[in-house]
């Protein structure tokens, strides 16, 4: 697609949304939400014989404001708050703009156009509910940024048979994924089918052409759910840089729901950033449970206890395994839903 075509296409979509917004503007309603993740973390290398770190922290907090201008136009602004960040100030609180977007519904049947800083529709990142405390594989390994600026088209397939999305991002996510901010947008396509209840299959593509190279990411997703089991699986393949580097990753996450308020969780990740290079891959194994003290419902508060043990094991025998014990109290409250 030529540069001019891209500019025209983006301008057209923006103009369409603006016209639509103007036509239906009316006094709206606001909703305020807050999430907080208070965590106790214990870290140790090797066989957990000696502790390296043991601390409390407000690892994450969201303040979210949503406003419905009309039934078809909604916006969301999310601010991410945390007590410490290794990449920033380790002693004070940090603040980030996590999301900031407007949804335009009704332009296409069963669909919406989202404009702004939003989740990317790649792999499991956009529907990741933190069943384990750890981030999704693509987020954790910085394969894809957890939020990025762009325009996406989201559509549900009728009768609840799935969904698909198309997106264009400018590559300037608030977390950079080993990629500089540049003039090249990233294009994404994502599809999920639910052919029978309990079986979800799908895949995502992300393509970004660079000056002399490209970033091409693929993810295959599968979910099998039949109470009490819910199991997620994901395969990721990446081709980046020049000379081209191929990366490969796998994530399997089974959840066993023992009753509506209590579930056991397990997860195994494998990530090899460069399959042609030896001893650079690692495994991540997670086990634990989630206890819903107060079950979260739409617009209702919720309190949840999450306990995870996580072990990261390197292919390189000279690298010590890393252990983490995480205990997290997660709570959320909100004003009435729309």
């Amino acid at each position, binding site marked *: 697609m030529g540069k001019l075509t891209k500019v025209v296409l983006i301008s057209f979509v923006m103009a369409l949304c603006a016209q639509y917004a103007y036509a239906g503007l009316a006094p709206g309603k606001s909703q305020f939400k807050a999430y907080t993740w208070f965590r106790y973390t*214990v870290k140790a290398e090797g066989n957990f014989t000696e502790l390296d770190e043991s601390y409390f922290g407000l690892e994450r907090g969201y303040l979210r404001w949503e406003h419905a201008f009309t039934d078809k136009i909604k916006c969301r602004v999310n601010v991410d708050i945390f007590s410490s960040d290794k990449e920033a100030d380790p002693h004070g609180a940090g603040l980030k703009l996590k999301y900031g977007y407007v949804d335009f519904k009704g332009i296409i049947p069963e669909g919406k156009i989202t404009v702004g800083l939003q989740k990317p529709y790649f792999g499991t990142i956009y529907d990741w509910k933190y069943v384990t405390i750890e981030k999704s594989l693509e987020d954790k390994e910085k394969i894809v940024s957890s939020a990025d600026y762009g325009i996406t088209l989201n559509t549900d*397939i009728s009768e609840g048979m799935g969904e698909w999305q198309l997106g264009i991002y400018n590559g300037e996510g608030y977390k950079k994924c080993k990629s500089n901010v540049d003039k090249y947008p990233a294009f994404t396509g994502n599809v999920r089918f639910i052919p029978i209840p*309990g079986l979800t299959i799908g895949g995502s593509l992300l393509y970004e052409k660079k000056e002399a190279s490209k970033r091409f990411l693929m993810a295959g997703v599968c979910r099998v759910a039949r109470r009490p089991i819910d199991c997620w699986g994901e395969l990721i393949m990446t081709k980046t840089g020049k000379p081209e580097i191929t990366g490969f990753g796998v994530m399997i996450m089974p959840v066993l729901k*023992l*009753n509506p*308020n*209590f579930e056991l969780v397990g997860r195994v990740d494998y990530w090899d950033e460069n399959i042609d290079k030896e001893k650079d891959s690692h495994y991540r194994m997670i086990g634990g449970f989630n206890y819903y003290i107060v079950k979260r*419902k739409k617009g209702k508060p919720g309190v949840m*206890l999450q306990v995870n043990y996580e072990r990261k094991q390197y292919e390189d025998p000279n690298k010590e395994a890393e252990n983490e*014990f995480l205990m997290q109290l997660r709570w959320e409250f909100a004003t009435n839903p729309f």
Partner: protein
Amino acid sequence: MKAWSKIVCAGVIFAHMLTWKTAFAGKKSLTLTGSTTVLPIAQLCAEKFMEQHPDVDISVRGGGSGVGIAALIDGTCDIAMASRPMKTKELKSARSKGINPVATVIARDGIAVIVHPSNPLSEITLVQLRDIYTGKISNWKDVGGKSGRIVVISRDVASGTFEVFKKLVLKGAKTRADALMLASNKAVATTVEKTPGAIGYVGLGYVSSKVKALPVDGVEPTKKTVASGEYKLARPLYFYTDGKPKGLAKEFIDFVLSSEGQKIVEEAGFVPVKSNE
């Protein structure tokens, strides 16, 4: 076993015990959650069913159709009561979690538009209703009544009645910002009953002599006009189950659809889906 492993194991067992239900209580149990429109039918049928089956414990909770459907998806109820069909997003969420929602129509209902008994208005049109609920009309004199502010009462967004009203009357438009959004049919009926300038809408079963139900486009909201399809603000009422009803859920739904159950539906002020001959 290391100390932390013991702590984790103890934590798992303790947390699980905290949430253990009375699995050994001996009674068979059934939970229904959702629409406050369907609530009186479910409650009356549950009472009768429990009388006939003393070993069965049926719990019926309101909250609105949206809450009931969410509970079915979440596995916290056996039957979701709904006064609207499931939305695509809800179906998608259910199917992805291995839930196969199957709807059983147990009754039909009309959404009655109600005003205070002292209100002189004798009927209303769909267009007038839309204009009132979207904010175009704010005074009773503009629809043929006495001059005075219209107090607009609506159901909240978790309500199936709200969804159906929005579709049939508002044609998708947004409810005026100053409308009072209430959580149940009963709350709407009570508020209209106590507020001379109020207008609201409720399921047929909530119409009483304490409020005045207005004919819409010249048709009175009655069981007969709902059954014949003459009354435009009509909808089916559903029980949603995960897959085809089975076990106790099937027994209960069969009872609601039996002549005895359908008689209860009629007594509750709704329209039976099976004739009682």
